[in-house]
């Protein structure tokens, strides 16, 4: 199986120009001849960086779910909602489809994403056995669903502005929302710093 790596060719990650990598000058910084970006055979320290973003993301999930994300004040009274209690209130109010949607976007997607990335890392590091096709499928699912967890932040920003009626009713954001924004950004960075080519490197070992 001929790959870029075992024939001494490197693909620019930005403009996707395939070009010669100098095997004798591994420590010299290479730049793409077309767009000038840094040129690497693989994203440097991909596994370490992905682990760091994923673990910080997992830790941030705790404040994001404990602290309230939104408070609805109606005629002077109201109590703060966390992500989960917000979903439960929606379900109790008979808005089942929205409750499911918010649950998927705010709780299921970040969790699936973080656990999925950890599964990918474990299987690359040889602690878990998933086939390369399964890993690639998992990677694509993670890439696809990641951005949809911004949904709750957009909803909060819309509601906060829309319901701003002074003494009658207001909706305020909570500190949990900031933590949740952190989770979203960290999971996006984790997925971006993961190099899917590492999945396939076990099949075709490099010749140096």
């Amino acid at each position, binding site marked *: 199986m001929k790959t870029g790596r075992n024939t001494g*060719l490197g693909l620019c990650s930005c403009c996707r120009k395939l070009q010669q990598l100098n095997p004798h000058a591994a420590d010299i910084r290479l730049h793409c001849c077309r767009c000038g970006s840094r040129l690497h055979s693989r994203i440097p320290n991909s596994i370490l960086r992905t682990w760091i973003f994923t673990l910080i993301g997992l830790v941030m999930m705790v404040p994001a779910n404990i602290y309230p994300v939104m408070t609805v004040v109606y005629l002077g009274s109201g109590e703060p909602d966390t992500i989960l209690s917000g979903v439960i209130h929606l379900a109790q109010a008979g808005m089942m489809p929205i409750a499911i949607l918010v649950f998927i976007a705010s709780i299921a997607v970040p969790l699936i994403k973080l656990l999925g990335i950890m599964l990918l890392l474990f299987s690359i590091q040889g602690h878990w056995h998933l086939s390369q096709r399964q890993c690639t499928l998992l990677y694509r699912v993670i890439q696809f669903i990641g951005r949809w967890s911004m949904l709750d932040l957009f909803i909060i*920003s*819309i509601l906060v502005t829309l319901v701003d009626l002074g003494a009658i009713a207001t909706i305020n954001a909570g500190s949990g929302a900031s933590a949740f*924004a952190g989770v979203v950004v960290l999971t996006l960075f984790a997925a971006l710093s993961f190099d899917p*080519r590492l999945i396939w490197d076990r099949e075709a070992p490099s010749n140096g």
Partner: protein
Amino acid sequence: MDEISSHSQRCRLQACHQCDLLVDLRRFVSLGRADCPRCGATIAHHKQDSINRTLALSLTGLLLYFPAVLLPVMNFKLLGQTHANTLVSAVFKLIQDGYLWMAFLVALCSLVVPLYILIGLFSACLLTRLRAWPSLQVLLLKGHYHLKHWGMLDVYMLGVLVAIVKMKDQGELQMGLGLYAFIALLLLMLLAQFQFDSRECWERLEDLQQ
């Protein structure tokens, strides 16, 4: 090594960006699209008349951008009081309430990056057609590559829909002109990004550089 590199020019060899397999693109010329035989990633997808279509779509998108972000998306009325929201006011409200980090993220994903993508696509395609300023083209195309993941108008649209369903029984809710402009902007944005063939722009740029 030299053999391979000179060969790569001749037979248009390309490495898959998701699994690094070397693929000979000549085999796919008649299809207009090349999928990696090992992992299935799309390596190249030629689009008909890509540059002209992207120009038209992104210019229309640019014209609709300001109405979409400045006109009210919805009006909410309760006990005689009414309030409207726009995409821009949503960010200012978050800043006012002290949630700077959230405001930054919402502004980035719903205002800054979509605007950059439209301007970037328009000017990159225009410069490609005019065969002018290759160094500016490099900057525009690189910017588009790094920022494209952060444009989230489609997610925002879902957020608007959820807000509508959630608030429609709580008071009186009216759709504003901004909503229609926003829907049109979203569709144009998706079409422009679908039509845009970065590979063609980069290849034309390379011919210009030489």
